[in-house]
């Protein structure tokens, strides 16, 4: 990457009790957020959770009802979009159809009165590998190329923060995977703070250093992808990031770091440090399908075991996914890697087991 664009960003972004109310509902409900400079930050959530509204408030395209936005030490809450050193890659790309690719990419630089805008725009196009398309119009390019032009058009301005609003949403799966890797590479090269809005949990986990899971205008949980996945704080996070089996439990005793719990009459062992502070009742134990194993009923190496009947089995190549019906009617999902172990058949009585370290406890939805 050329030195012109490469630089260490000072882009630290801070949101303080940021809120956006509409007449009849609250889109963003007073969120606090600290995005460290140079990080790849993902806002993840289902549609309508307020993630895009948050992004648009940061961009200056939407006005907050209350709260402040800080970029570095500057309070930018009351500035207009064109006054913020922030650029956006729009979901629809929003390329100017009447301008060619070079003029699209150079648009921001010309507004900023950068003298050598052409050189810089060409460098940005080289970064996204589209330098040979400079003279074409956006409609002559494929969706994936337009997406890269939109990216080049934003990063060429060396913003302190780059906002990405579901930038890969319109691409097909294969292209999306390629662009995920590409975006990550570019982010590491230019060192700009990226804030990426998406509803695709896999995308968020693949790309981001930190993920904030949003739900109904609030940040439900924030952390590194692995942390969120292995120890989700709520049932919503547990199910939004992958699949989870949730067993209702009661804690009977805690000894050291081990907690003895009961679920439907079975005694199980869990990690005491995952007991949430709030809501001691309605407590549930979560285990990811791939952490469950089908074992022999006589196997004594496992502390946590449950038995049930296989009600469904689907073979996907790398693994087999079973639905195992428990005596109390709940079906647990088990993903068994295709590693040569025997496969269970429909209707078979099986024993499922898991390591206490691989389960987490959650208190609320």
């Amino acid at each position, binding site marked *: 990457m050329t030195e012109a664009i490469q630089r260490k960003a000072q882009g630290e972004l801070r949101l303080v009790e940021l809120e956006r109310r509409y007449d009849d509902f609250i889109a963003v409900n007073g969120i606090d957020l600290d995005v460290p400079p140079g990080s790849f930050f993902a806002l993840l959530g289902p549609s309508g959770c307020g993630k895009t509204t948050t992004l648009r408030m940061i961009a200056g395209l939407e006005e907050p009802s209350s709260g402040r936005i800080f970029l570095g030490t500057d309070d930018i809450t009351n500035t*207009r979009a064109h006054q913020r050193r922030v650029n956006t890659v729009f979901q*629809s790309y929003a390329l*100017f159809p009447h301008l060619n690719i070079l003029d699209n990419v150079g648009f921001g630089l010309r*507004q900023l009165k950068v003298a050598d805008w052409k050189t810089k725009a060409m460098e940005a196009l080289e970064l996204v590998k589209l330098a040979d398309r400079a003279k074409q119009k956006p409609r002559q390019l494929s969706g994936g190329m337009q997406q890269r032009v939109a990216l080049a058009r934003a990063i060429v301005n060396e913003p302190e923060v780059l906002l990405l609003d579901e930038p890969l949403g319109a691409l097909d799966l294969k292209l999306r995977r390629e662009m995920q890797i590409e975006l990550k590479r570019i982010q590491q090269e230019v060192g700009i703070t990226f804030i990426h809005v998406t509803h695709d949990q896999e995308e968020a986990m693949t790309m981001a250093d930190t993920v904030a899971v949003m739900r109904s205008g609030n940040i439900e949980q924030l952390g590194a992808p692995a942390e969120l996945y292995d120890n989700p704080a709520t049932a919503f996070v547990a199910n939004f990031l992958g699949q989870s089996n949730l067993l209702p439990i009661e804690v009977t005793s805690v000894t050291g770091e081990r907690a003895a719990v009961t679920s439907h009459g079975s005694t199980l062992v869990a990690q005491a440090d995952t007991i949430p502070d709030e809501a001691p009742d309605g407590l549930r134990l979560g285990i990811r399908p791939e952490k469950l194993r089908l074992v022999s009923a006589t196997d004594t190496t496992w502390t946590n075991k449950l038995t049930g009947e296989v009600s469904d089995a689907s073979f996907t190549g790398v693994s087999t996914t079973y639905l195992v019906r428990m005596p109390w009617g709940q079906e647990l999902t088990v993903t068994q890697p295709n590693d040569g172990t025997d496969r269970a058949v429909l209707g078979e009585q099986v024993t499922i087991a898991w390591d206490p370290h691989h389960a987490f406890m959650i208190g609320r939805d």
Partner: protein
Amino acid sequence: MALAVPGARPARRRAARRRGTFTPLLLLAPAMLWLTIFFVIPTFSLASQSLQTGDIDNGFVLTWHFQTYSDALGRYWPQFLRSLIFAGSATLITLIVGYPLAWFIAHRSGRFKTMLLVLVIAPFFTNFLIRTLAWITILTDNGLVTGFFRATGLINVLRWLGLVGNDTLLYSPFAVIAGLAYNFLPFMVLPLYTSLERMDMRLLDAAGDLYANGWHTFWKVIWPLSLPGVVSGTLLTFIPAAGDYINSKLLGNTQTTMIGQVIDAQFLRVLDYPTAAALSFILMATIIVMVGVYVRAAGTEELV
């Protein structure tokens, strides 16, 4: 492969192909017939008329008398020039008034959109002549408008510009241009509305995000993208306005005569058909050349 197919099938295929080539022609036929009868034939007849000599009592004979053209132009060039200036001014006014109006209807009117669009074309429910006559009342000497122009001193500005002769608004170039602008405003607003309405508003977000303030967003994004609407609106206004003869007749004076009035008089009162036909042809040619240059300059064919 065609060689291998025996018997009746090639014939049928030929028939299918023949039907295929005739369908577009059949579809075009009504329009072609219409244009032939009401445009092509009259154009030739007019061309022939302009090159004839004679008079109404003894009949006209085609003598290829091209001098009629130079005579007509020599005599009536002031009216020609005036027509173009009046029509151009009226077009500019409708653009300046119509653009914000079209923008408002397209993006700011919410549920009143349909109602406002109906209001734009509502004047068409009234006869063109009546609407123009109404302007006599509007601009009358002791009316509100004249009063306002006198009170604010704007009338002196108009007089300095040569748009009014004394301190009355009626029967002046100003009145004619105002009448033209009023009568042709819907022809400007509707195409502008169409092109502004389908504009992707997210492009405005993008422009703002890329450091363009409102003014730059307008000139760099909105205006170029609305050019197709601007071009069709100005053409729909300028072309009929240049040939209009009602506004100058009703709202103007003897010094505001437009070329449409001259043609009207030559055809229906002086009965000098060749001159009238020649003037019509010159007007048509002038407009075609101007439109050609204009459309090419606007470069609308390159726009999406």
